[in-house]
């Protein structure tokens, strides 16, 4: 939401690509500030405590956004083409923005996978996730890793917000449903597995879209959450996650 909104705000003053980059950078800074101000100095915070704090912060951001931008629906222009133009792909007509979303999504996953598997920093971050104390013993600064993970996820969120903004529009309160959906997808795919998350995201999206066949479209939001609940009840490790990895985490 923040990414989309900031991009919309900057768009009149800057060329579109620059506005989006700046929006992403600003959102990253916000993410870092939130982590440093609210999370970093806590002494061994429980996960629940952090969740409640972040929910509280998201409410705060929402309210600030409401007062900054009002409750109107905003949008960005299509990156290429316009809202009525489409591209013919083997007989299927697709809006060019959809291709942008798919492309950027794919790129983000590839970049994340490379980051976590190939770079030293990514491996350090995974070590922290698996066992914080052991990672610290190996000389990894766990605190910085948490900050970095906040910045990283803020950046990805902002990129996503900016890319889908032309299609879905953006509003001060469009963040919360997305957060829930993101959590659902993460659980569905198994936490800490970005490739599986993409598969899970597709499954969720398709299930949600097809639910309109049998249920009123107003229930669409409820469907994804019902799926989240079912997954949590039945297989909290996610469909693609291994039970072994899940045993390390506490549900």
């Amino acid at each position, binding site marked *: 939401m923040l990414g989309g909104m900031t991009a919309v705000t900057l768009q009149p003053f800057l060329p579109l690509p620059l506005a989006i980059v700046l929006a992403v950078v600003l959102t990253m800074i916000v993410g870092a500030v939130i982590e440093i101000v*609210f999370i970093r100095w*806590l*002494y061994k*915070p*429980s*996960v*629940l*405590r*952090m*969740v*409640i*704090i972040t*929910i*509280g*912060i*998201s*409410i*705060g951001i*929402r*309210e*600030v956004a*409401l*007062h900054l931008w009002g409750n109107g629906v905003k949008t960005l222009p299509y990156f290429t083409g316009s809202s009525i133009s489409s591209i013919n792909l083997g007989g299927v007509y697709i809006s060019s923005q959809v291709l942008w979303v798919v492309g950027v999504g794919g790129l983000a996953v590839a970049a994340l996978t490379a980051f976590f598997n190939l770079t030293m920093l990514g491996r350090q971050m995974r070590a922290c996730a698996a066992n914080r104390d052991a990672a610290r013993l190996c000389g990894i600064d766990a605190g910085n890793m948490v900050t970095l993970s906040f910045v990283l996820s803020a950046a990805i969120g902002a990129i996503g917000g900016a890319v889908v903004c032309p299609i879905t529009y953006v509003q001060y309160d469009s963040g*919360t*449903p997305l957060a*829930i959906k993101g*959590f659902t997808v993460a*659980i569905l795919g198994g936490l800490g597995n970005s490739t599986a998350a993409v598969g899970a995201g597709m499954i969720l999206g398709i299930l949600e879209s097809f639910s309109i066949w049998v249920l*009123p*479209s*107003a*229930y669409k*939001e*409820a469907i994804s*959450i*019902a799926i*989240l*609940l079912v997954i*949590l*009840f039945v297989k*909290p490790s996610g469909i693609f996650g291994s039970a072994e990895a899940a045993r390390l985490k*506490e*549900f």
Partner: protein
Amino acid sequence: MARRYLAVAAFASLIVAIQMATFFTGTGYHLTQLTMTAYYSLVTVGLCMLIGYAGQISLGHAGFFAIGGYVAAFLTTWNLNPYQGVFVSLLKRSGALVPRTDLYGGTLLTVHPWLACAAAILLTIVIAYIVGGPVLKLKGHYLAMATLGIGIIVYRVVLGTDFLGASDGISEVPGFPLPGGLAIIGDASSRVSNYYLAWGLVILGMVLLLNLIDSRVGRALAAVHGAEDAAGAMGIPTARYKLYVFVLSAVFAALAGVLLTHYNGGVGPSEAGVMKSVRYVAIVAIGGMANLWGALSMSLVLNYLSLRGYFGTYDDAVFGVILVLIMLFAPDGLLRRHLLSDLKRVFSRDPSEEEAP
């Protein structure tokens, strides 16, 4: 024992004192918000029982509130006149359905409010029981997200269902008749009686919860809160007790929803919103988690200020900020029994006492 009822008596006299104050200063209109506050307080103390004493968080209590409110509103406004059958006439003869006239003089045949209330409570128990079982197996952020999800499902369903009024909600809900000519209704003439009825109910709920805490169940819950595995090893059926408290607090929320709907004469989807759930949790947190009196007094103050509009457009933000601050600086809640010793510990900065209870 005596001390417990002393607190109840003190609170009851506070309620009377507030009414007297509004009577003598001629500000009786404050009682309307105070009555609504009472119903929200009922949700808060129920949730306080769940969070503070059973150690389980719920970010979906507005959902249960809305289930109660919507079932009551729907059944008491659903005109059964077009459905003249054997079943309907049988129900009518048994007194389950009552004829009444609407605002425009048309005749309605609707379910009796008491029966609607019973149906609402029953449905809440069933739903809470069904979802409570698997939900309470979860811990930490999974529990928070699952309960948040339940709340959002309720919100989306009431928002998307036509016969529940979609985004308009249900209005023209009749009053809730009580013996002795009283009724839970938003009339200016019955403002004082409703104020006492609502707070009387809250006090009744408090007595019930206070006794529960001091009972076998309450001690078992304290053990669960302290060390769940140890409690289980001692033979305490931890899962069952947690489920009981979850259902109980859901019933508190649903009952509050039913009665507030009758009092306001309507219910809207915002009652089921995430912000309402967050608000209840924030109030419990500032009240000191495992402190029913703290939760009740904070609910009285904050709900009243919010309903009177003192927070203006920052209404939701205030509760969000409260929640963040409490969780940052006092994750065990603000108003608690060890408040003084906590303060001392914070200022003396002695790390060796960090683990002290």
